[in-house]
């Protein structure tokens, strides 16, 4: 509608500013990094093994997550049982669970002095070790098995219930149902699931930092960190950053060709009751996954509670710092997402692609790039928290944008003409129509962004000194110092704060919302 008078004029300016900011953050920092990268000749043998390990562990993690998720999703699709809704909630939680908290929980179960090793020792066997590639993959499966389960469950529930009834009336047994109904669905859904998880795992930093390391278990992100932090080799950090971005970009492009499930689809509470298949197999699948997911978190609670009264002042002030970093970052994410979504109404959906650029970009590359751009003028330590706010906001943007943009389009469709015919434009339209109508996705998006930022252990590690540490960084420092009692207590605080922030924002968007 070329001549249509456009609804919100301030969106052009604000949106264009956000687009510029994001381009500087992703491509600009990459450019800065590339400019520095000319000073080194090539990647060393160790760097190449980091590249290989990154791809290998991502592939293994993705395939394992998807394969283990299949029986769990099938059980959830065809069985109604007590606690099913709770399990679905738990399956959604890892997304907003701080990585470093989960790592500590996994250590409490699979570490040298964890439950599993204790049991093995009691049986006279060697304890297991979680450090190394196996720990990295274990943590990645812990985080992505739930995601895979939800996505595959969605696929299962997308098969019309009538087909299962038809299959029953035709006398199909489990094998027939699998062949004619389930396998075709899986063939469609699985590539997207594996792709998404592969992409997530290639940018893994915190897991590799805590559990990996050494020549056999270093990801590219970790190698960037080490080059920057230990060797101060900007050229190498830059080159690795380029490789990381190239991998992300290639994967993002490749995933355009594969239908990637949305993951936020509603209606997972539906069950198609069936009388085929083994109840025992389903019960085992559900019990194992519940145990796998809940035990590490229960360990955090159990081991964290006793230490709570003794938490040091520095941990508490780190927690306070993290809360405002998270709130600021959530606010920034929501403003950017809103500006981009509004601008895309005028300039087309291509604008939104800028918001998704950070999927391919790595926070450490952005951090390194910002350092290269600014270190001559500003003390990097002073920038640690502002940069963390900014980078976390950019990293959360794709998720918030995906929640917000369809809702805004729907709003324009339903009420756009009414608002325009009444002369609602600019701030008045934003204040009277857009913000109140978008409260739910805004609250949800802000909650996601706050929780992600609260738990983030990424770019902050590049700059911060202990006096400016966020809670995840302070927790990591406690872990490396083997002060485990304090670490568990800090982890419990971090876990509680992340979930509370998400709950508060999400709830704020729901209360009294007129539909």
């Amino acid at each position, binding site marked *: *509608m*070329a001549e249509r008078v456009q609804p919100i004029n301030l969106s052009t300016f604000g949106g264009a500013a956000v687009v510029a900011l994001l381009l500087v953050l992703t491509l600009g920092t990459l450019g800065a990094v590339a400019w520095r990268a000319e000073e080194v000749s090539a990647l060393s043998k160790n760097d190449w093994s980091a590249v290989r390990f990154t791809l290998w562990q991502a592939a293994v993690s993705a395939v394992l997550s998807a394969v283990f998720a299949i029986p769990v999703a099938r059980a959830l699709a065809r069985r109604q049982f007590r606690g099913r809704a709770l399990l679905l909630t738990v399956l959604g939680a890892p997304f907003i669970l701080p990585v470093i908290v989960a790592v500590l929980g996994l250590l409490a179960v699979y570490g040298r002095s964890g439950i599993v090793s204790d049991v093995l020792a009691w049986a006279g066997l060697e304890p297991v070790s979680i450090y190394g590639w196996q720990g990295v993959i274990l943590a990645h499966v812990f985080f992505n098995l739930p995601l895979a389960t939800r996505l595959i469950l969605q696929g299962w529930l997308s098969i019309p219930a009538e087909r299962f009834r038809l299959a029953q009336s035709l006398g199909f047994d489990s094998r027939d149902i699998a062949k004619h109904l389930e396998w075709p669905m899986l063939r469609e859904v699985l590539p997207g699931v594996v792709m998404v998880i592969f992409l997530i795992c290639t940018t893994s930093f915190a897991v590799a930092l805590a559990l990996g390391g050494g020549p056999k278990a270093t990801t590219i992100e970790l190698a960037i960190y080490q080059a920057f932090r230990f060797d101060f080799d900007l050229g190498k950090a830059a080159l690795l950053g380029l490789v990381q971005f190239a991998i992300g970009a290639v994967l993002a492009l490749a995933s355009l060709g594969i239908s990637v499930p949305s993951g936020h689809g509603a209606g997972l509470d539906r069950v198609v009751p069936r009388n085929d298949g083994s109840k025992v197999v389903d019960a085992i699948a559900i019990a194992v996954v519940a145990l796998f997911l809940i035990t590490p978190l229960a360990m955090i609670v159990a081991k964290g509670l006793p230490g709570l009264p003794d938490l040091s002042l520095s941990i508490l002030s780190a927690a306070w710092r993290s809360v405002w970093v998270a709130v600021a970052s959530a606010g920034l994410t929501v403003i950017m997402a809103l500006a981009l979504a509004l601008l895309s109404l005028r300039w087309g959906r291509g604008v939104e692609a800028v918001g998704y650029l950070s999927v391919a970009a790595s926070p450490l590359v952005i951090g390194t790039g910002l350092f290269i751009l600014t270190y001559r003028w500003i003390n990097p330590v002073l920038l640690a928290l502002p940069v963390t706010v900014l980078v976390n906001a950019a990293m959360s943007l794709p998720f918030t944008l995906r929640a917000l943009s369809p809702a805004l389009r729907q709003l324009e469709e339903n009420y756009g003409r009414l608002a*325009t015919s009444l002369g609602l434009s600019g701030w008045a339209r934003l204040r009277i129509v857009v913000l109140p109508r978008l409260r739910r996705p805004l609250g949800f998006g802000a909650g996601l962004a706050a929780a992600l930022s609260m738990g983030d252990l990424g770019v902050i590690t590049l700059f911060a000194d202990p006096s400016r540490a966020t809670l995840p960084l302070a927790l990591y420092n406690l872990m490396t110092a083997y002060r485990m009692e304090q670490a568990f207590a800090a982890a419990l605080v971090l876990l509680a704060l992340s979930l509370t922030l998400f709950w508060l924002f999400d709830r704020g968007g729901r209360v009294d919302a007129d*539909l």
Partner: protein
Amino acid sequence: MLTFDKVEIVQGDFSLTADLLVPAGAKVSVIGPSGAGKSTLLSALAGFVPVTSGRILWNGEDITKAAPADRPLAMVFQDSNLFPHLTVAQNVGLGLKPSLKLSPQQNARVAEALARVGLNGFDDRKPAALSGGQRSRVALARVLLRDKPVMVLDEPFAALGPALRVEMLALMAEIAQERGLTVLMVTHDPKDARQLDGSTILVADGVAHAPVPTGPFLDAPPDVLRAYLGG
């Protein structure tokens, strides 16, 4: 007087021409087969669909390029006439001032308009707490405050039952009469057109025809309309 001066609207394969006059104060039904472009005609008038060529004039003034809110017309949509999160008074108040920063006098005018449509004391309710008929009344109250010479209705009251629809059309016609408004109403039901009892614009085969008196027109409808009306 509303003038469609050799107006042509092209959207992909679809095209519609309109070259006609609507006298001020006329009550015009717009009728025609589905997909013929009834709503498109009104959307072009309201400024939501661009005109490919030709001009739209109100009392000789060219409004073809005017912003939707600046045109001399107030709209009643098929549904979604009210914002669900705003109260009845706020929804009506938008007709006076989009910023909703109303003076005491303006608030009094809102209350007056609500009283006129029979919604005394409904100010603080939300649309969800209203019946379908009451929601339509709120939309009409807002038209009153918009104070525009033309009222444009796109299949209004479509969600209401037959009796309620008759009632709302009567209220709408009454208000138009009091204010001397020109009415253009898209409808798919000849009964609505007969009740409005003015003239009818037939939209069919890519042409919006000049208005003709409704009664005689519907007594002997042209073939394209007869097929649509079903006898």
